[in-house]
């Protein structure tokens, strides 16, 4: 069987679709796990998106906790003889999968952007070297565990008439010396860059925090979301980390990405390379960002941004 799990239900639906396609090739079936929060409605939808069976693992835990969740999945995998396990590559999924792999003595590959059969073997692809190359990897044994980032695979068509088994079960877990004390939501200006269709993004070319208003003016005209590169969020903390686009920040694929004063470090490119159209504004003509851009303006963003805001306002008006 193929087991699918994600703590993000949307990603679980995507995996149900991918799991189904893979199950047809491997001549097997898909079992989906819902832990703790699983409602009957979500279970039914998992079946409609591709799962053959859903197990709702009931737990008293209030929130995701990796040690116990791993134990639950280990048991579900054993009970259902799962040789392929797909896990959503959320922050929780990324720390769950390798722990589960250790317990199941399994190979695992995280953050896969593709899964297919080649020469009869399950083959996966993932970005390596800060997004500069793609490693093609194959499993030499089972079980095999693959994590898949959200939105890697399209949401499959939903078959609303499809029925399947929904089982509710309790699983014993080990007891661990760790304990979640508190969950704090991050500061109020939180944004979701991953959902944005236009992003105006800034980097080190910005001289001071107040100058973000230049981006905000352009963003207002474009109805865009503000993003940034690593230094702005991680080092200078001018914007919260939910604005951070890059390998260790958010990965985005908007229709339009405007990079202002961003040099184009490979780690940043890895986060935005799938954008439809990329615009770069940088005063250094040699900045690597121009190699990754469709349109480039060599110039000081302090002069270019106000002029561009006006020009775009004009074309939108007409």
């Amino acid at each position: 069987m193929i087991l699918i799990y994600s703590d993000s239900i949307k990603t679980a639906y995507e995996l149900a679709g991918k799991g189904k396609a893979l199950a047809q090739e491997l001549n097997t079936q898909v079992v989906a796990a819902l832990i703790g929060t699983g409602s009957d409605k979500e279970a039914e939808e998992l079946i409609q998106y591709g799962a053959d069976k859903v197990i709702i693992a009931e737990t008293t835990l209030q929130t995701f906790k990796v040690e116990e969740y791993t134990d639950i999945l280990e048991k579900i995998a054993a009970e259902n003889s799962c040789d392929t396990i797909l896990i959503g590559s959320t922050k929780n999924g990324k720390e769950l999968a390798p722990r589960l792999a250790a317990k199941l003595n399994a190979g695992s590959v995280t953050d896969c952007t593709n899964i297919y059969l080649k020469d009869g073997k399950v083959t996966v692809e993932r970005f390596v070297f800060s997004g500069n190359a793609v490693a093609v990897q194959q499993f030499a044994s089972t079980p095999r565990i693959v994590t898949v980032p959200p939105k890697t695979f399209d949401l499959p068509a939903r078959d609303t008439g499809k029925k399947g088994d929904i089982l509710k079960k309790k699983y014993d877990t080990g007891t661990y010396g760790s304990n979640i004390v508190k969950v704090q939501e991050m500061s109020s200006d939180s944004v979701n860059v991953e959902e944005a269709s236009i992003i105006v993004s800034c980097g080190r070319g910005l001289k001071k925090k107040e100058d973000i208003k230049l981006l905000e003016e352009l963003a207002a005209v474009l109805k865009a979301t503000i993003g940034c590169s690593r230094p702005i969020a991680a080092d200078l903390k001018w914007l919260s980390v939910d604005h951070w686009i890059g390998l260790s920040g958010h990965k985005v694929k908007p229709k339009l990405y405007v990079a202002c004063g961003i040099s184009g470090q490979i780690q940043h490119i890895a986060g935005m390379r799938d954008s439809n159209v990329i615009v770069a504004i940088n005063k250094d003509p040699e900045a690597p960002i121009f190699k990754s851009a469709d349109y480039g303006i060599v110039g000081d963003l302090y002069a270019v941004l106000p002029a561009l805001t006006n020009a775009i306002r004009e074309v939108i008006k007409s």
Partner: protein
Amino acid sequence: MNIIVCAKFAINVSEIKIDPATKKPILQGVPKEISDIDKSAVEEAIKLRDKYKGKIIIVTVGPPESKEKMKSLLAMGADEAMLVLQPEKEDYHVTASLLCAAIKKTGSYDIILCGEASIDQFSGQIAPRIAGMLNIPQITYAQKITPEAGKVVVDRNMGDKVVITESTFPVVISVTKEINKPRFPTLMQIMASAKKPIQELTASALGVGDTSPKVETIEIKGVPMERKNIILEGSLEDVTKKLAESLTKESVF
């Protein structure tokens, strides 16, 4: 108390060049360094040792030349190091098994620190795998570690939220790059580190018989970036107008 830090001898990604014809990375001759997030783990280990006393032991799986770079971690303040010579082929299962065997060989382990992920592969598998193999708690993405009597309290960076988790010992903790700024050792410390021991071990000496990987890399492909690369030229008014018109044609807004 023994504080273990797992450090990777990784490809320095910023030195990678791309072959313009094949778009593949040229890996030959690219220098290798200790992965930068692992240096943050060593820095954090030093702070924890100030509180708990005991010693810091670095564990690396790598080729013999890793030793030279491991010395920089001893110079930062780690007490001793173990280098497990890497088998011909490895995957995370193999590496984690070797690290675990080396960690057990240290006698006792209370806190095992790792970087969140390595700079070259960025998989983030090692910390959770070690915790799973030892069946002990894991606290990943640590952005702040507060040592208390008999336990640590950790702020975990989960992107949209901070999860505060505490754990008794032993525990595996993976740190983010933002947790601290690793110190640069002084010349005196660098010279003194030459006397600190680095034990070299093989898989068989650690009793790890089977080192066959479960995942094999069959190809490293390039990433073609198909972009128009149009640099707009002219006065400020011209270029911004041209850009606005081009974007209209692309119907992005």
